């Protein structure tokens, strides 16, 4: 058991640090923005004499322990004036810093973006951070600043195209991304089937995407972690932020309830109703809205509490024949408590749910499905000294899955009311994560997460012959649904199956010299939930299902190796990373699987495997009037589902051919080449210009190898899966931001963002369909493209 040995090693290592003794004192505190008291994440606190330092955590807290002595502490953060303070460290000190924004008119020398900038000494690799300011500048379709669309400009992140939900990280599926909004899981990140993401950029403080080297405090999804923090609100004065755009408008109000102690934030965003009205000649509605709220209260220096919420819905209806409502709701309560100036804790109680409702009047039913979860998290960060920090914590999530309830919508309806069997599960985890500077040039992060998943009893559970819910027809070479031989009624208190996984994580950084470093990481992750989606990108009605008696948890091993270089004193930076990952138990679906309203999903699922590998390059210019980056990724992403082990049945052992005859095939997220260019040029105080270019190898798909007729239907006939590709995807977008001169010396700040999406009007294929032309009777290939050139104007204001 190598894992046990590594635990033992950790414990020994810890003991050796505790026995370490020298007279040390601690400086700790919170760093906030002076004008609003908003805490700042990732602020650098440097001790020049010792060439050491730390950064503030997610709650703006920092702590560093140093030998007795006199030091100069330098606090620096993007867009803010540095603070330099001499201290004489002869006792534990609490120092709260308040940073002031670098005034706009002084911005002759444009500040560099520290947060997004590369820290070559930290072992953390495969992470991309984006400031909300950057996100707001990136040109997007219809001018609606968008967190998720901005991520696509980073290496290793792709999507299925304009109108597709979610994003794909390093060849992973969209359901393998853990999306956290103030630590609460968001199950669907898109509005309007992927046109916009559900996050209102005005309410967001900071986002971070972990593509690999994922610290052990995170778990539950195998591909990436997207962590989004909402702002706390201004506790000094009431402020309004908003914007008027081509599709949606937004307004956010924040201000003090008790000055300097309690702040509130409430933001709303809504698209205009009847978005598609001109496009239909019937009565229809299509719109979305979302609300972000937060109350933060500082009880005293050692205790703060936060209450935050998110509620979003998409609404569609056509002639009242088809009514569709779906969205996320999230609420959480958090309590930050300082046990000592070295021990920071955060307790979170989180409720999150995803609801999907549908009414089809012409068939006569209503349909509700969704997932709810109750999450308790307790995290501690222990700042032992300037070389060692230990994070540890607990997490327990209880899930209720509603795969669907069908209700007749009128007394005349022939539909019989039916509740598909609800499923229940509990996921518990414990983790330790150690950040340690071993020597001047070697830093290591290592940790272990132990996760335990219980699939709890449910009202009805089918039992199958040989425990096989899917049977293989060796004659027809197809997998079909097995007929249950019995139905049992395990009580809710029973445990249908349980899984325990040890998830070790290690990453290390070795600094070669001031400019160069190499980093390496290994990550093991377990994912217990699966999104049942048989399409290239998820649809809003896809349902989540837990691992259990027939579905194994997905297990990932990821290895990454990188080279990092700061060029010309940090003016440029270069990151090169290679990764290899391997996922066991990636579910695959039998041909013709019906995933919706299926009460026995195990009958259409087989456990397969997936793998991906690639090389990512990121060259950034971090300073000057012109800033930007070039990202290039070359990668491969594949999966396969071989036949199961032969079962001896009636004295004969049944060989199986597997899905796609057991051959590896490209996943829909296999994009061989992915190029993204982003540039921002500040011409003067009034005008700045942005542009981005994206190129992605066409998405793998299936083109027919032939056709045949059956009962008058012209049926395309396909070969092995995903052997052809759509044409390459590329487009160029530009934007210009104008800040009126009169902004100067007044409270009301405004800006205009003019943008043109897809400026050379590339008809990128969202799909190519093959069908018979009804008039000529001939078969043809039809390309569907979503957006051609789209100009737009957005007006943003703040006062």
């Amino acid at each position, binding site marked *: 058991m190598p894992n046990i040995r590594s635990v033992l090693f950790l414990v020994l290592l810890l003991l050796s640090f505790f026995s370490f003794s020298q007279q040390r004192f601690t400086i700790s505190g919170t760093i906030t923005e002076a004008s609003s008291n908003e805490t700042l994440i990732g602020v650098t606190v440097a001790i020049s004499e010792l060439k050491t330092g730390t950064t503030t955590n997610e709650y703006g807290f920092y702590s560093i322990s140093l030998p007795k002595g006199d030091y100069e502490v330098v606090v620096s953060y993007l867009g803010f004036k540095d603070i330099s303070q001499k201290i004489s460290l002869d006792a534990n000190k609490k120092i709260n810093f308040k940073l002031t924004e670098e005034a706009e008119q002084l911005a002759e020398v444009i500040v560099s973006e520290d947060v997004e900038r590369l820290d070559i000494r930290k072992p953390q690799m495969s992470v991309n951070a984006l400031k909300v300011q950057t996100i707001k500048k990136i040109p997007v379709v219809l001018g609606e600043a968008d967190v998720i669309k901005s991520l696509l400009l980073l290496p290793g992140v792709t999507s299925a195209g304009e109108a597709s939900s979610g994003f794909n990280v390093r060849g992973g599926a969209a359901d393998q991304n853990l999306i956290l909004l103030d630590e609460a899981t968001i199950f669907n990140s898109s509005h309007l089937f992927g046109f916009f993401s559900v996050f209102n950029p005005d309410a967001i403080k900071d986002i971070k995407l972990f593509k690999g080297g994922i610290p052990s405090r995170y778990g539950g999804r195998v591909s990436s972690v997207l962590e989004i923090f909402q702002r706390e609100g201004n506790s000094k004065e009431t402020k309004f932020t908003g914007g008027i755009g081509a599709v949606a408008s937004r307004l956010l109000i924040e201000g003090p309830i008790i000055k300097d102690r309690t702040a509130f934030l409430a933001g709303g965003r809504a698209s205009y109703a009847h978005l598609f009205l001109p496009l239909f000649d019937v009565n229809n509605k299509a719109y979305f809205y979302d609300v972000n709220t937060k109350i933060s209260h500082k009880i005293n220096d050692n205790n703060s509490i936060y209450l935050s919420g998110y509620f979003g819905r998409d609404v569609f209806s056509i002639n009242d024949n088809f009514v569709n409502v779906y969205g996320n709701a999230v609420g959480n309560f958090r309590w930050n408590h300082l046990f000592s100036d070295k021990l920071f804790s955060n307790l979170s109680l989180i409720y999150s749910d995803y609801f999907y409702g549908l009414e089809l009047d012409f068939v006569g039913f209503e349909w509700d499905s969704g997932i709810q979860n109750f999450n308790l998290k307790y995290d501690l960060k222990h700042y032992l000294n300037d070389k060692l920090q230990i994070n540890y914590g607990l997490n327990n999530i209880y899930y209720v899955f509603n795969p669907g309830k069908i209700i007749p919508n009128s007394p005349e309806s022939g539909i019989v009311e039916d509740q598909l069997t609800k499923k229940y599960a509990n996921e518990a985890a414990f983790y330790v994560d150690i950040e340690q500077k071993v020597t001047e040039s070697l830093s290591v992060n290592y940790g272990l997460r132990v996760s335990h998943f219980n699939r709890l009893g449910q009202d009805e559970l089918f039992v199958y012959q040989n425990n096989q819910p899917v049977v293989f027809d060796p004659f027809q070479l197809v997998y079909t649904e097995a007929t249950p031989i019995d139905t049992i009624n395990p009580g809710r208190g029973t445990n249908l199956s349980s899984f325990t996984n040890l998830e070790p994580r290690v990453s290390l950084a070795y600094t070669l010299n001031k400019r160069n470093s190499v980093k390496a990481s290994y990550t093991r992750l377990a994912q217990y939930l699966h999104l049942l989606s048989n399409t290239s990108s998820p649809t809003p009605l896809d349902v989540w299902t837990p691992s259990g008696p027939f579905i194994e948890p997905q297990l990932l091993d990821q290895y990454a190796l990188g080279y990092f270089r700061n060029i010309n004193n940090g003016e440029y930076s270069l990151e090169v990373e290679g990764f290899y990952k391997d996922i066991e138990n990636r579910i695959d679906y039998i041909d013709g699987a019906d995933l919706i309203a299926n009460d026995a999903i195990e009958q259409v699922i087989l456990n397969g495997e997936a793998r991906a590998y690639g090389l990512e390059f990121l060259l950034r210019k971090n300073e000057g009037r012109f800033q930007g980056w070039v990202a290039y990724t070359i990668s491969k992403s594949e999966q396969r589902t071989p036949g199961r082990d032969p079962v001896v049945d009636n004295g004969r052992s049944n060989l199986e051919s597997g899905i796609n005859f057991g051959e590896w095939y490209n996943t829909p997220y296999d994009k061989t080449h992915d190029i993204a260019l982003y540039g921002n040029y500040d011409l003067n105080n009034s005008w700045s210009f942005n542009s981005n270019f994206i190129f992605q190898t066409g998405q793998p798909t299936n083109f027919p*190898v032939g*056709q045949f007729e059956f009962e008058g239907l012209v049926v395309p006939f396909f070969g092995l899966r995903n052997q052809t590709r759509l044409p390459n995807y590329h487009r160029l977008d530009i934007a210009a931001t104008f800040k009126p001169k009169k902004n100067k010396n007044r409270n009301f700040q405004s800006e205009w963002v003019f943008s043109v999406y897809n400026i050379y009007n590339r008809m990128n294929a969202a799909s190519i369909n093959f069908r018979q032309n009804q008039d000529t009777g001939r078969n043809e290939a039809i390309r569907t493209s979503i957006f051609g050139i789209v100009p737009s104007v957005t007006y943003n204001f703040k006062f």
Partner: protein
Amino acid sequence: MMKKIPYYFILFFLTLSCEDVIEVNLPSTESKLVVDALFRVDVAEEYVPVEVKTTVTTSFFEQSEPTQLSSAIIFYGIPLEDDPSLFEEVFSSSLAESEPGSGIYIPDPNFDGDQRISTSILEPGMVFQLIIEHEGKRYFATTTYVTVPPIDNIEQGTNTLFDEEDIEILVTFTDVPDIENYYIFDFDFNEFLALDDQFIDGQQFEFSYFYDKSLEPGDEVEISILGADQPFFNYMDLLLEQTEDTGGVFETPAATVRGNVFDITGLDNINIFDNVERPESFALGYFAVVQEFKQSITIE
């Protein structure tokens, strides 16, 4: 019926997006035999309408070509209870091409004795086997006769779905209670619907169908309900998915729709073999014998 939902989403997209016809180079493969042998039984008629249509696949942009068989025969009977591979009494029907070059095979009028299959002999559970020879290969298919309840009523509705021109047809039928039933509806103009009774067991059920084809007042449409067993339902369901799939972001992985006609060349016993080692040994198409009820309506 839930399967159609992604299709409605796609319609949303299509209104936002634009479509154009493009040239695509398609991969090609060896041509395969296609057998279209769906016998729709009207029990009020004297004979089963036996007609086996054979073609070979072509590349996607070409028209399919009829092909000729060296022989075709149907065996049928009630399987023995203790050995379902044997019949109580074996009946047979030899087939011959109706007109040279047509690729359509019907009971051989020149054979000794009447080769037609009488509807009076049919009963649920009767098994039919089709054995054909084509270009030196022997193919085999087996299917079970499935009955179906009649359509109770059809009428034209007034609702529209996406367009004021949409024609709504309300179809009512009564599901057979307590057993799993599968239905195929043929709405004419090559529009089909596959339906199972998961949510409507034993109910009189009315549902709307909106035509893809644009219909004019005065047009007469004929709607049929066809019985299906689970394999045939799965086949039609997948077939319809492949023809309706508008692809793109909601595209499901394309699957070769494998029917129930297999290449058994060189195999001496059809009851024990598997195809795992010979995945390409199959013909496309399906052989099924099902009951059908029809009703017509004139569009107003």
